[in-house]
């Protein structure tokens, strides 16, 4: 197949480039020349109705939506009509910029030429944009450069995602903020914003609120050290449509919960709190039970997801009173005592994951959790020893509502009632499905 035969059909340079750029991730089953041949052949027969070039644009659009960018690019080389379809705004509403440097990532980056093309030709079509950025500062800078060029678009969603070490944090704050506020100011209808691990600050949140308060529904900003409790309170006060929020515990306050449960505010759906300790022995503030109660009254179905990354001795203020947490994750060792309190004070608990606990088996704590957490349907235990009989008892009490049950085999302690071989049958019986403990290679 010669190149010349192909060239008459070749659409603007960009797509050729693009195909080179994306070759590793996607591919079409044949080269453009092949597809050209196959597609054109029926057309040479005038009686044949299957003229692909005359497919209505609507149908083409429908098909194109299922194709990855690279395949669309190849398809666009087939004929004019397909090439037009390639540029339809509907196909450019979503884009994920992948910004990686060869020195810091194994993955490919979106080709600079494609980025240029998008900014030039399609930036006014963009609505759902995300940036995946590796651990290099250059990549984070490149993301900011693109952001600051998005002046004539109205984004609905924006996600800044660090795929490795959080590199936005390494940028000069002012540089990051000015790029981000370009989007805040120009978009005016942002509904979802994910800016975890970035140097976003209170003033920039104010800009966000000033321009997007009616539309904002989702805000994820875990580990944004430059935001203060007052900054997030301002968001909650003004953005009454906010339904999902993710932040670190140090931003959580009684005022925030009360603002989120004010009459003007829609029902909250998810609240995700990360509790991370910067240095051992850190003191954490408490949240009043009345604030949580107000939250539950206002949004009876809301999910409270809490991730704990604390040393064992830092749990003092937690789980003293009833807390409406639904999903609990303990990323480090947590004491039997705290797990005992979880059993007492978390009546809405749906999922519990414990990475590790001390040296003594968790038996009574598990039984209590099964007894009192009537909605518990998922549990994962890492380095937490449990006796086989307590484990079986736990599963029996929870029964089939346990849709997820994960435990490492080596932490199950065989006892007089069950050996390790028996436990898989016992547990399977109570769950009503085949179940095995998790295994790691013993090689």
């Amino acid at each position, binding site marked *: *197949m010669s190149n010349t035969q192909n060239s008459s059909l070749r659409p603007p340079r960009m797509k050729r480039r693009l195909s*080179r750029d994306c*070759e590793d*991730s*996607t*591919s079409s*089953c044949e*080269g453009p020349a092949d597809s050209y041949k196959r597609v054109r052949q029926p057309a040479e027969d005038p009686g044949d109705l299957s003229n692909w070039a005359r497919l209505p644009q609507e*149908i083409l659009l*429908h098909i194109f*939506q299922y194709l*990855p960018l690279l395949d669309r690019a190849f398809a666009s080389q087939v004929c004019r009509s397909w090439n037009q379809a390639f540029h339809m705004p509907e196909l450019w509403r*979503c*884009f994920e910029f*992948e910004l*990686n440097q060869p020195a*810091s*990532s*194994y*993955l*490919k*980056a979106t080709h600079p030429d494609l980025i240029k093309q998008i900014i030039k030709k399609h930036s006014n079509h963009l609505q*759902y944009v*995300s940036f995946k950025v590796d651990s290099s500062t250059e990549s984070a800078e490149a993301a900011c450069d693109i952001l600051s060029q998005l002046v004539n678009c109205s984004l609905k*969603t*924006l*996600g800044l*995602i660090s*795929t490795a*070490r959080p590199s936005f944090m390494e940028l000069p704050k002012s540089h990051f903020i000015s790029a981000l506020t370009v989007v805040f100011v120009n978009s005016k209808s942002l509904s979802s*914003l*994910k800016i975890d*691990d970035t140097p976003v600050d209170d003033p920039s949140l104010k800009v966000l609120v000033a321009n997007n308060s009616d*539309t904002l*529904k989702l805000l994820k900003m875990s580990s944004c050290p430059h935001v203060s409790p007052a900054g997030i309170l301002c968001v909650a006060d003004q953005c009454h449509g906010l*339904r*999902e929020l*993710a932040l670190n515990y140090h931003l959580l306050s009684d005022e925030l919960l009360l603002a989120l449960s004010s009459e003007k505010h829609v029902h909250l*759906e998810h609240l995700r709190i990360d509790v*991370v300790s910067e240095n*051992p022995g850190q003191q954490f503030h408490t949240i009043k039970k009345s604030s949580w109660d107000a939250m539950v009254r206002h949004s009876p179905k809301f999910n409270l997801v809490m991730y704990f*990354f*604390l040393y064992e001795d830092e749990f003092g203020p937690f789980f003293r009173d009833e807390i409406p947490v639904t*999903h609990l*994750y303990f*990323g*480090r060792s947590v004491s039997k005592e705290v797990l005992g309190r979880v059993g007492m004070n978390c009546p809405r608990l749906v*999922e519990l*994951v414990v*990475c*590790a606990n001390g040296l003594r088996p968790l038996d009574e704590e598990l039984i209590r959790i099964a007894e009192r957490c009537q909605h518990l349907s998922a549990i*994962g235990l890492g380095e937490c*020893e449990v006796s086989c009989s307590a484990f079986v008892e736990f599963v029996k009490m929870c029964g089939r509502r346990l*849709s*997820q049950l994960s435990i490492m085999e*080596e932490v199950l302690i065989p006892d007089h009632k069950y050996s390790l071989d028996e436990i898989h049958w016992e547990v399977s019986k109570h769950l009503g499905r085949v179940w*095995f403990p998790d*295994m790691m*290679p013993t*090689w």
Partner: protein
Amino acid sequence: MPINSIHWFRKGLRLHDNPALLEAARGSQTLRCVYFLDPWFAGASNRGINRWRFLLQCLEDLDSSLRKLNSCLFVIRGQPANIFPRLFKEWKVSRLTFECDSEPFGKERDAAIKKLASEAGVEVITKISHTLYDLDRIMELNSSQPPLTYKRFQTLVSSMEPPEPPLEPLTRELLGNCVTPVSENHKERYGVPLLDELGFDTESLAPAVWPGGESEALMRLERHLGPDSTAAWQENFERPKMNSSPLLASPLGLSPYLRFGCLSCRLFYYKLTELFKKVKNGSPSISLYDKLLWREFFYTAASNNPRFDRMEGNPICIRIPWDRNPEALAKWAEAKTGFPWIDAIMTQLRQEGWIHHLARHAVACFLTRGDLWISWEEGMKVFEELLLDADWSVNAGSWLCHSCSSFFQQFFHCYCPVGFGRRIDPNGDFIRRYLPILQDFPAKYIYDPWNAPEEVQRAAKCVIGVDYPKPMVNHAEASRLNIERMRQIYQQLSRYRGLSLLATVPSNHMEVVSVSEAQGAAVPPTCRRTQSSTSSHPGVRREQPGPSRPKYRGTRHRHALNHRTSPYTTQSNLTENGHEFAVPQQPGRLFWPIGGGAGKRETEAEHNGCHGDDGPSTSSSALKAQVDKKRREDGEGVAFSS
């Protein structure tokens, strides 16, 4: 016509239970046992000195055992493909025997040699003896696919006949009239080389903790059934406990010997059965052979997958956007992480060539998904250099497991580089042994010495940041970031949108495989080109004009399809969780299926956060609306972004 045989040793460095060797001796006039060693390759290879020493000791031992039979070993300097044709002529060879190699590159090499042999009119006999089972048989039972979970593998294996019993060792009687002609300059030409002849500096080398060789292996095995049978029982049959594991090299340890084939896995299997019967009545269930079976599992998984040891182009490996960070990698590999537990293990590994499997979990988790977010491939390479029992398949397979890159591992559980070790060895004796600098630290602080007050550090004569490094990461912060990333990756793979962390990973018992019609692994040579081209500048790639391009893309496409159907296709009747485990449409491109969640709030919120309820899907076009509806019903998002 007289039969002149060559037995070609590669792995399987033993005389017992060596069916191919027996074939070589059967009815032959002459037998020569050869081992190929490329001395120029030795210095340049990434195998560490301990591995070379172990190998040379194996060869020494083999040579001396053969000498007891009036034979000897021929260590041939060079590459088999270059030298065999000459040997065939020189020795008038009519029969060549060797042990089957199940690994992809071994198979390729053996196919080439078989061709050479048949061209030279040499009969080739191969026998399976490095694994318990015929791996092809296992795959046959599993619809020609390697099982992707260990449970599934266990099930398959337990439906098979038990492994064949081990054969008798080669003896003088079996050799009969068969002789080994030895030339005068045998030692110079074919003797086992010394370590320093291979270019290693042996002056500062400590004595081997793991002496290589079949004799040593058999001695260790004897101890299992002899005076040490209680310890052997614990080591082999009792499930490893989190808090009492022997971290030190055990005189009963056998894994390096199995790796080099100094010990037959079948012999070990039957000795284990004997041991079980000695201590308990009845016959052991299949799970009691776990150690051997994990090894077998990885051999099976890798046997048709030449890209088993890498992320790119490996159909069973999840693509995770690992960080490239040579400095951090070096700190890990050189035991300078500042976490005594990690550094002690890495020191033990470098000094002795073996670490306990819990220790492997700890350092592997730390390097990859736990703390440093560095690719498992890098860790695998370090193990390949240092770990005596690191075999290509087993090593890569373990790393795939540890990094949660394959085999349906639950990723929620990260080993804490402080707490995990403390649980196993509260006193820190293990650390003191390998990191003498920390010797005087009280047990309270030995796992996190940076938390010790200054006076404690000074009293211990080890100031953190001066005499021993500060911890290279904040574990709490790193695990927060990493668990979130793993969750996102798995969520995208599974298309699961709920809040549950656990539900993002399919349960391990569901076997699931339909690793595509074509061997997911049979990657055409074009892939190598891809690989090399990735390193070049993106703008320069794909310049090859003309006919090669379409073809090239064609193969890639097949490859991509393999991905599509690979690790997460679930048999629908087994999905008890109500959520679907679809397949990454584009491997590794962890795209963000923005349009997918438009229907359900819960759905939306969780997937990476942000897209509003009026996603791109609620366009005005009626057609589009239909698409959305369909998509919602399917519960899967379509990737709009490339």
